[in-house]
């Protein structure tokens, strides 16, 4: 979740660059068709689709989805800011999420996070959400329980799930980012 948006002001979120391709439209329509009772149910799938395509949800995403599902923009923005998976600014090419909940914390997730932060040379900039490196290569944030507590500490690198990520493994995972 990024800085809380203030009503009455122009959005401070940068519009996404890139175009919506016919293939993407087709995928979107297919997703909508899975909810024959109410189009609105397709908001989450469409948000995922948009974020996977453009990297984040900006005003264009909100407006495109709102239009497609006959909703008001606020009804889409409500969800972008409610669900932590969605972000309103681009994250790194390699986005790391480290679980911070109790079992992983007991397993040393704090050390894992600190190691990753150091390796990526990241500083907290007061933004809510992830820390993003200046060159846009890395980003890092905490996540809540990722449901693999037996192999703590666990992380997600983009869509890859990694278990037992101690400091050594964390170093390997960063080095492996090509």
């Amino acid at each position: 979740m990024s800085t809380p948006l203030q009503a009455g002001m122009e959005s401070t979120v940068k519009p996404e660059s890139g175009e919506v391709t016919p293939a993407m439209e087709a995928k979107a329509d297919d997703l909508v068709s899975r909810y024959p009772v109410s189009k609105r149910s397709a908001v989450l799938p469409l948000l995922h689709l948009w974020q996977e395509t453009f990297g984040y949800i900006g005003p264009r995403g909100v407006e495109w989805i709102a239009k497609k599902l006959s909703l008001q923009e606020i009804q889409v923005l409500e969800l972008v800011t409610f669900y932590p998976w969605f972000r309103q600014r681009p994250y790194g090419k390699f986005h790391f999420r480290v679980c911070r909940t109790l079992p992983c914390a007991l397993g040393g997730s704090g050390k894992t996070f600190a190691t990753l932060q150091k390796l990526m040379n990241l500083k907290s900039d007061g933004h809510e959400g992830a820390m993003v490196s200046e060159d846009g290569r890395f980003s890092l944030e905490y996540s809540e329980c990722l449901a693999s507590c037996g192999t703590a500490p666990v992380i997600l690198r983009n869509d890859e799930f990694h278990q037992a990520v101690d400091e050594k493994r964390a170093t390997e995972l960063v080095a492996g980012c090509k």
Partner: protein
Amino acid sequence: MAFTEHRLIFKHIDAPGYTRDITCYQKHGGYEMLKKGLTMGGPAIREEVKKSQLRGRGGAGFPTGTKWSFIDPTKVTKPIYLICNADESEPGTFKDRQIIYKDPHQLIEGMILSCFANGVKLAYLYIRCEFTEGWKILENAIEEAKAAGFLGKNILKSGYDLEIYVHRGAGAYICGEETGLIESLEGKRAYPRIKPPYFPAVLGLYMCPTIVNNVETLCNVKHIVEMGGDAYAKIGRPNNTGTRLLCVSGDVVKPGYYEFPCGAITLGQLIYNVCGGIPNGRRLKAVIPGGSSAKVLRAGEVYKIKEKDSQGNMVDRDVKLDDLRMDFDSLAGAGSMAGSGGVIVMDDSRDMAECLANISTFYAHESCGQCTPCREGVLWLKKILSRIADGQGRDNDPDLLKDVADRIAGRTICAFGEAAAWPVQSFLGKFKEEFQIRIRRNGAAAKRDTVSLTH
């Protein structure tokens, strides 16, 4: 003495050579129960589930047969929906992940049977988005099942139609609450609904009768169809039937997932025999037996559990922590709960204030914010506990924490209030002197001594 698991649901999990495609599944008898169930008919399946005394495995332990009985497909005019709750997010729990990633068809078959039993034609599988591969695995499995005629129109020429779609969540624990899930599935903020009037059996998804079941629960349905409700009820003990998937994490030598009949194993046996005990020469200090929402148990405690004696009378028995049976009634009798089966073990090197602060941070982050006590109170709890963990506690903090927690539990729209309050009430209640010492010692020194678990 080794304790052998009773691998019913986990039969094929990690089995060498077992793959998650439908061919492998069918080679091991997969979808035979679907054929059996279709011939049995819906009411018969529901009857078996009732006889089995199966209790929900998502955390609440509500009898599934009873939940299903709230909807009578012959009397309902609106469409009936079924939603599989694959939003596994309870800290300490990682059992549904194994099923989804390694034996998805078991879930699909169980789900189809459950849908058929309840007259459901359209069902959704709500999976947490952090299972980044899991949803693709499930979609693939559904495609396979469809291609084989087990899903879609006129399943196995029975005349029964069913569509199942996978729906990805987006990172909110509150979507594990059944009405929060329904709201999320409808495309809104996951605000749980007030009950009354919005009981899912009456006003659920799209205001139609809806059944929400956990992954493990649905898998059990398949096995109930296979062996019959009575046989299933013989596993475990009365009112605590079948097997349970247990997940152990934290300070044990062999953390992991295990399956035992309900109550067949005690907490001590689980920790010391199955999981190899506490590493590094440490001793047990505390254990949360059913996911972080469950009340914590302290090493050395003795509980008065009501049990039936040989004459059938209800008597109080003294049960030590190590001898607590891992089933619903025993754990409830000890003042905690079986919950989602997530067992988190803490050894005597752990600072209880740090652990509780960590848990409270989780709940503060996950509160949906709809109702006053939870929205304001849970964050307040976190702030106080973080302050204590940081070495700036105040003398009245323990009493204040208890007061705040007492004013959240029972006063909220959904059980999240209790889930956030119980850890605070139980940790404070059982480790009171530790908190007091921590506060009295205050300052940076108190912080330096312990490993920080709060981020």
